């Protein structure tokens, strides 16, 4: 599975969510086929609630981990 990384650090809500959703839509076909996963890096704590809630409703799976001071949200099918 190939990884597409997107760095969302420094942004405030709702931009964190809206830009994440834009990325999900941009790579929708690859994500739906299961050939790619999207990895979003964020330092906005609330994004760890808003992004997973939104993409789970779209049928994706989500994993969250913390690397140093940053949260990493992995979105895949």
């Amino acid at each position, binding site marked *: 599975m190939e990884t597409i990384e997107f760095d969302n*650090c*420094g*942004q*405030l*809500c*709702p*931009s964190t*969510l*809206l830009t994440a959703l834009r990325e999900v839509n941009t790579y929708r076909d690859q994500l739906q086929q299961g050939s790619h996963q999207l990895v979003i890096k964020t*330092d906005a*704590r*609330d994004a*760890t*609630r*808003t992004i*997973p*809630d*939104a993409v789970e409703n779209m049928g994706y799976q989500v994993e*969250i981990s*913390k690397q*140093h*001071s*940053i*949260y990493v949200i992995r979105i895949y099918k």
Partner: protein
Amino acid sequence: MNDGYLIVTVFGVVAGLIMGHVMFRADYCMVAMLRDLFMFRSTVMVRFLVVQIVLSMVLLEIAHACGALSYYPSLLMGPANLSSVVGGLIFGIGMVLSGNCVVGCLYKTGTGSVLGLCTVVAMIFGALAFVEVAPMWNQLKQYWQVSQQTTLPQSFSVASGWLVWPIFLLLLPLLWRWYQSGKLQLKERTEGFIQPWKAAVVFSFVTLTACFFTGMPVGITTCYVKIGSWFEQMFFPTHVAVTAYFHNVALNYVPVFSTEMISGGAGPRLDAIAALQLSVIIGILLGAFLSARRVGEFRLNFRAPVEQYFLVVVGGGLVGFGSRLAPGCNVWHIFGGVPLLAWNSLFFVFGLVVGTWLGSKVLLSRMR
């Protein structure tokens, strides 16, 4: 030192430390609570605000019934005036554009967000801009006064309990349903996460203790004018000297446990407003900083799109300006005024909801 100043300063710092820590850990963003209703049709976070308002209302009513509140309903709450709707409206638009309210930007600044700091500075400029139109606004306000009374119970000439307890009983089934269905419990996805319902309980007690120790709910924005006036005095001392708004003494009272009078206003002085509000501001910044350091999340970050800087400056300016038109911010009105059933706070919330809706429309149109 006058012990009255000491009491309110110590209270302010402690309350601010608690607010900064809990807001950061619980992601208790009041902008998201209202904005997400319109932008994403999400009621997840606004539930906690309802819990907080209901609990605060009950706690304040019990304290009042026990005679524990020396200044009831509150100091600095004026008679019902529709100008609060206009203030709330402008505040709401600005809040959505900037992504911050008056406390949100403080706790985010404490965690290293440069966008948060830019919002604080923009709010100070917005509040200062109001000073220039204050005489005109105060004249206009005279025509918008709808009652001499401050609260609903006063207008209906009934004891506050006659309204508070029925409202509580009316909302209790809703709160119970949320509790039973697990809607008050969020997934813990961040380190050191505090459940927002716990934050709502903490903030209710902060409001209760603020009303007990200081005679009023927690406020922030008069001090934004004061901070601005300090800077303005450096560059335009003559203008500050002749501006009446900076010389008004809005507050003059004896705090609980004190025998000495404290007084203050928005001008460039270390007075009661500084003791009450600057202490809270410093407390929030410090509380959020220490809390973020504890979980390794303090991070100086200024890397954001230019458009976001533009939005926080414009939005922050509107928030600062709107908070002075109202007068009062979301914390003053929602944490304190609404639970006290103050007319102006209810007017402010009405304007705020409409402003949030408008701001959401603007933001969505820019993001498409």
